[in-house]
């Protein structure tokens, strides 16, 4: 047991905290709204190799693991950095593992996949992942879908890679205005030109593993978001006075901040446990990831909501930063769907019979009524 980072990990965290703190000020975050994408910052993130940090070295990546990615996600969350690092990292990892498996096991190398993977890992192309299976010919509300060149999506039992020639970091398109200022977009599924990454159970397995990894990294980012929101709250209640005293002396404020602090410590432990479990390839890795995601989502939202409330009327103004955190706390988790359904699925995975543990991709969306 060792709950500390290694020295390298500590150094990485310090570096990234400084990097994101400097490059993703709240002014920069605001400037990137409503699209939620800062192309210059993305370039720098790519140059740091962050989106391929967990890709094996022989495929051009950093050869590190998910603990390192979780560190990056935490720092991204703290600064609300408007870059799709999590999506790109997960998609790159997916492409790399499929490309690697293809070249090593079957021998039937897919040159197109290898080339696209290499360019994604090198940062020339931005890849992302649709969090829900495609319905019909559309992948709905894909995170980073408005700025991605490549989109991995499950359709039926095929895992497809879509090329979006009309979009990419340089030419964002199709963005839909949303609560979290996320570069979401619907992505048409053009099966003729799509690359089939995998079929059948292998496709579902690879897709689910990618979803888990997205969950754990988003959990880490939400922890980062929540911890920063708590810090903003502590600072505010230590400077704002009411009734002649600092509002930080009020018992209800103290107690609610304390509750949030505990939950955030729990969220942190869950996120890094999940990252470690991925790196160790443990059978619990997927349930750990879901737990990390769900708990961080609730904690981040509760923390940001309460801290916003403690700001009084100022919390409601666009001028104060806390609203940036509040909106994203809700939106970052909601893009993966209703958490209640996820809790129910989790119970089956943790406690269910083998039968109930059969792969069940995240539920497809309800069709809009009109």
């Amino acid at each position, binding site marked *: 047991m060792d709950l500390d980072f290694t020295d390298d990990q500590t150094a990485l965290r310090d570096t990234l905290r400084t990097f994101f703190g400097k490059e993703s000020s709240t002014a920069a975050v605001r400037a990137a709204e409503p699209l939620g994408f800062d192309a210059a910052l993305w370039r720098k993130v790519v140059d740091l190799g962050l989106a391929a940090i967990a890709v094996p070295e022989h495929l051009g990546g950093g050869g590190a693991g998910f603990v390192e990615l979780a560190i990056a996600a935490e720092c991204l969350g703290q600064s609300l950095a408007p870059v799709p690092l999590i999506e790109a990292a997960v998609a790159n990892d997916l492409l790399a593992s499929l490309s690697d498996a293809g070249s090593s096991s079957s021998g039937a190398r897919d040159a197109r996949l290898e080339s696209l993977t290499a360019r994604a890992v090198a940062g020339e192309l931005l890849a992302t992942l649709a969090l829900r299976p495609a319905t019909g010919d559309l992948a709905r509300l894909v995170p980073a879908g408005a700025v991605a060149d490549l989109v991995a999506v499950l359709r039926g039992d095929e895992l497809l890679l879509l090329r979006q020639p009309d979009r990419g970091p340089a030419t964002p398109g199709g963005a839909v205005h949303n609560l979290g200022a996320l570069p979401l977009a619907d992505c048409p599924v053009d099966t003729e030109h799509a690359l089939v990454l995998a079929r059948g159970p292998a496709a579902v397995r690879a897709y689910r593993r990618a979803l888990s990894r997205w969950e754990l990294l988003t959990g880490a980012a939400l922890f980062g978001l929540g911890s920063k929101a708590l810090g903003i709250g502590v600072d505010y209640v230590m400077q704002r006075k009411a009734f002649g005293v600092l509002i930080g002396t009020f018992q209800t404020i103290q107690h609610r901040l304390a509750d949030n602090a505990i939950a955030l410590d729990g969220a942190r432990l869950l996120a890094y446990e999940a990252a470690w479990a991925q790196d160790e390839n443990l059978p619990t890795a997927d349930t750990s990831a879901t737990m990390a995601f769900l708990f961080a989502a609730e904690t981040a939202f509760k923390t940001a909501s309460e801290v916003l409330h403690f700001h009084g009327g100022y919390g409601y103004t666009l001028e104060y930063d806390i609203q940036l955190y509040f909106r994203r706390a809700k939106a970052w988790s909601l893009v993966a769907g*209703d958490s*209640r359904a996820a809790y129910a699925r989790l119970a089956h995975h943790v406690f269910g019979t083998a039968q109930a543990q059969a792969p069940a991709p995240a539920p497809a969306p309800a*069709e809009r009524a009109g």
Partner: protein
Amino acid sequence: MDFREFDELASHREAACAWVEAHVRPEWVEEQRRSGTHQTAELHTLLARDGILAADWAPEYGGSGVDPGFARAVFDELGRRGLACDGWSTTSMVLRTIEHVGTEEQKREYLPAALRGDRLIALGYSEPDSGSDVAAAKTTAVRDGDEWVINGQKMFTSTAQLCSHVFVLARTDPNVPKHKGLSMFLVPTDSAGYDIQPIHTLGGQRTNATFYADVRVPDSARLGGVDGGWGVMHVALVHERSASSPGSDGGSLVRDLAAWARTARRPDGTTVLDDPLAAERIGRMAVDEEVTRLLALRNRWRAQKGDLPGVEGSMWKLFATEAAQRHSSNILDILGPEGVLAPDAAGAPAGGRFEEGFRAAVVGTIYGGTSEILREIIAERHLGLPRNR
């Protein structure tokens, strides 16, 4: 016991709908959303013209004799269609306060003009350094002969950009305990030295900071006694916290959600409402809404009996606004990823009304007394617990 709502409301619904159909232009809703100003001048003029503003007032002050039930039904119907009249809301609170504590001259000066649609009054209580602790106001009013000279700044002076007056809380005696040195003034917004700056909010509404630099008002602009402002503001606050009528919040988000959940289908053909996890939350919200409605009903019943529902108003306000926050958050969860879509996004459920509602609900527990202040009121006045500061 009889829990029936004013029968008038039901019997006037049809007439109210007809009035709204005949007069309201749909683009006003979009205009309110776009501008963040939740008050529409043309609509206000029409409401005044047809005596709807003046429905529940004595004839000597401009009362129109229009049935109050019809007027309520009209405002209810406007709310259902997403049209707010925030400027009139604050104005009517102040008018009720004038009715309670004003001089005969003040009643004659302000009431008829406002009921004719010629006056809108914004609330000027909060300041940069005093929100919940509103009695800590630093804005000063110094007597100079028959005039008062006002200096200071007010925050969150909503709809002031359309108002003829701001109802300003100012310190008239700095040498006594803070609650005892305050007075209230009706400050015309065309006064020399008055200035206004917009503040934009998470919910999309525009509010304002207003500034007072040697603003001069006559003594007749003072409402209530010198240094009696705390009591006057208390009367206005009670009206604010009990100013509820069903649907005046712009209709029921829960009802809208239920309508969506009844028809939106999952890929397997079932409706969202068939999902027990969605239905359970919707059921819970329905109960909360009924509690909210009953607490509001009690306020109206109290008012009908001639009481000022002080503690009861606080209970309603606290419960209603906290429930609205829970609901607006739960609703987005039920909608799933589509819940994040903003009003101007294609495919946003109910045109983004839920996403907007989520952002707007935030302020409910702050304006007109934070939840913490209201809990304190209930603990002290209803439960008899000791003051804790």
